[in-house]
């Protein structure tokens, strides 16, 4: 009897020790949603509704987790990926998030898409202490570990990108007269704010024209005419792909050739530059962090070949010109890295801890030199970009890898 009691005491002591030391790795620890055989991951995407074009992100991620499972899973555990449709409406997002957490009992919600939907569930997720990991939005507010320790972004945020352009303008064209066109929503305004912050005190004198369009407008031609009339010699183009192509085309038609900055959102050759015409796009400056699959320079790149093989096998009907496919592939790899780093300690706390201690992670879809970095105070995994200039039929990278970390 006493032997058993002794054993129990030792066991208890051991488990105490392991809880406070890194020896926890040897001990299997689970929260709801993880077990010896399975890791349950929730996801919310707009498969229907106005933003349904982004649904391809969820499909690509599903394909990627099928690949992981086919190759033996993560540390022997299969991933169960449960992805629900919220049609980009916040009340539905709340319902789906609660369903995932309370009914499906997932370990975390991963890469849920959109700023309004994620805003709607952020408080809930943090109250429940369930990771809301690598959200699919470029808003700046996700990097706020103090207020929201269970929420983390992924991509370079809009503000840091426009700060990079602002710095470039201040350095290379300090007497610029700038015209800005932006989409009248959170995304457009976030970019504009970063840009003005980046220009600092000179913003008021340098920006000579500012024009907003609604996403429902069929064409933005009249806006371009107005901006040209302002006499600006620099044009910052904060538009989504359809409008970006229109703007580039119209600029050319009007024979207006300012120094043209195009936001990364619309830097796709396949869906923006090509429809607008290569001729019209020469000299445009943008920035990138992902490799553009439609860019011929990556044809023989190792990461790109692996991406193509993955799509051939697990998602053959994917549209490879769609930047979302590459995006989803990369973020899924990011999650894979975090889960592998967690080892056998699959608690929600450890997930956030590992997600917040990524050092210089390089992924196949990222531009050479761009690395994923996080820390307990930096919840913005990707914050580097490289400036690119369009030349011929491809983006030419120039300058150093730049970073513009901004907190939420």
């Amino acid at each position, binding site marked *: 009897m006493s032997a058993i009691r002794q054993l129990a005491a030792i066991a208890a002591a051991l488990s105490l020790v392991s809880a406070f030391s890194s020896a926890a790795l040897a001990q299997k620890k689970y929260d709801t949603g993880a077990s010896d055989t399975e890791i349950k991951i929730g996801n919310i995407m707009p498969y229907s509704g106005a933003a349904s074009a982004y649904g391809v992100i969820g499909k690509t991620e599903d394909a990627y987790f099928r690949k992981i499972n086919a190759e033996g899973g993560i540390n022997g555990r299969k991933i169960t990926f449960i992805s629900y*449709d919220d049609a980009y*409406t*916040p009340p539905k997002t709340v319902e789906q998030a609660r369903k995932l957490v309370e009914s499906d009992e997932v370990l975390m919600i991963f890469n849920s898409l959109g700023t309004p939907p994620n805003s*709607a569930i952020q408080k809930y997720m943090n109250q429940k202490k369930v990771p809301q990991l690598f959200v699919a939005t470029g808003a700046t507010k996700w990097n706020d570990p103090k207020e929201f320790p269970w929420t983390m972004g992924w991509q370079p945020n809009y503000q840091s990108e426009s700060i990079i352009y602002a710095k470039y303008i201040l350095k290379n064209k300090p007497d610029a007269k700038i015209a800005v066109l932006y989409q009248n929503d959170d995304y457009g305004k976030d970019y504009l704010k970063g840009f003005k912050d980046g220009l600092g005190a000179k913003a008021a004198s340098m920006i000579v024209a500012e024009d907003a369009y609604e996403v429902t407008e069929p064409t933005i031609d009249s806006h371009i005419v107005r901006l040209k009339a302002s006499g600006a010699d620099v044009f910052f183009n904060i538009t989504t792909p359809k409008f970006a192509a229109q703007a580039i085309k119209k600029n050319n038609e009007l024979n207006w050739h300012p120094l043209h900055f195009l936001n990364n959102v619309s830097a796709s050759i396949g869906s923006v530059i090509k429809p607008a015409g290569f001729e019209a796009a020469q000299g445009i400056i943008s920035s990138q962090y992902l490799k553009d699959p439609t860019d011929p320079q990556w044809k023989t790149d190792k990461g790109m070949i692996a991406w193509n093989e993955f799509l051939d096998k697990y998602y053959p009907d994917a549209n490879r010109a769609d930047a979302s496919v590459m995006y989803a592939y990369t973020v899924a790899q990011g999650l894979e890295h975090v889960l592998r780093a967690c080892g056998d300690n699959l608690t929600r706390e450890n997930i956030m801890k590992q997600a917040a201690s990524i050092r210089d992670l390089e992924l196949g879809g990222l531009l050479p030199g761009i690395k994923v970095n996080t820390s307990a105070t930096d919840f913005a995994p990707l914050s580097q970009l490289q400036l690119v200039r369009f030349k011929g039929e491809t983006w030419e990278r120039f300058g150093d890898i730049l970073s513009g970390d901004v907190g939420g």
Partner: protein
Amino acid sequence: MSAAEEVEVVTEGQAVEAVPKRAMTLGYGTSLVVLAALILIPLFVKNFIIFQMTMLLIYGLAVMALNILTGGSGQFSLGQSAFYAVGAYTSAILMEHAGMNYALTLPIAGIVCFGFGFLFGQPALRLSGVYLALATFALATAMPQLLKLGYFEHWTGGVQGLVVTKPDAPFGLPLSQDMWLYYFTLVVTIAIYIASVNLLRSRSGRAFMAIRDNEIAASAMGVDVALYKTLAFGVSAGITGVAGGLGAIAVQFVAPDGYTIQLAISLFLGMVVGGVGWLPGSIVGSAFIIFVPNIAEGISKGLSGAVFGVLLFLVIFLVPHGARQVAIVAQQLAAKLKKN
């Protein structure tokens, strides 16, 4: 008039069928059974289900509001999402900026929306049928953009929306937030349901229905058509506003993207599925718009929209009068069984 005949009553040349006011409610026994179910079920299910049931009641209220307008006074509206949004924002802004108690914000949301609906009803008076539907449609499309306007951004939070704090149960009651909010919503819903039934049975209700059945005849009988039409709009908007306010509290978040034309169409759909003019059907319609998309998604993720369409088509094809028809058939069956 027997129940079977009632289903057949569809006045020709009229978009909304005439529902006699007696057929607008449930019998006593059935009401009590439904009520007991609504009170007891939450005690045995998870918080998530309770949340869904809360949303069921809230959308049920909004569907019922549309039902009073369409089934009662014969006017169409595709603009209910706008009233819902105004109610939601009124509650959210009062709670978050003015620090007001959530329960107090609801009547205010109702009154604001009543005024809004009453005013909107004025110009809408000149329109009827599809034209009215289109005018209200315009309201619904405009609303999300109005909420994004820079002038109001200080209060509305612009596109980012507003986060609302969920209330705890008062007096230290041992209830979870979800359960408390559910019972709170249930009480509000029942109160509004009873008030609505009484309204439709009152003089005003008879005036609504007279207008619905024949406007000229109604005015010949001395019904002030203009007043009662706008009044119906106001009442409907007011109830929708209360539903919106409750919705904001339950979801804990308001943003323009939550109140698009999609919501208005869902509510309209809920009314048709529940049975136009049959108030208890509202809850069935609400269940349809909440749960059927989930079922459709479960069947096929990529084609969830198409599956939803097929399910909707089946319902409209098989039971064109919605839940009311099902209820009547069930009633007849029950009567037959009793006889045997």
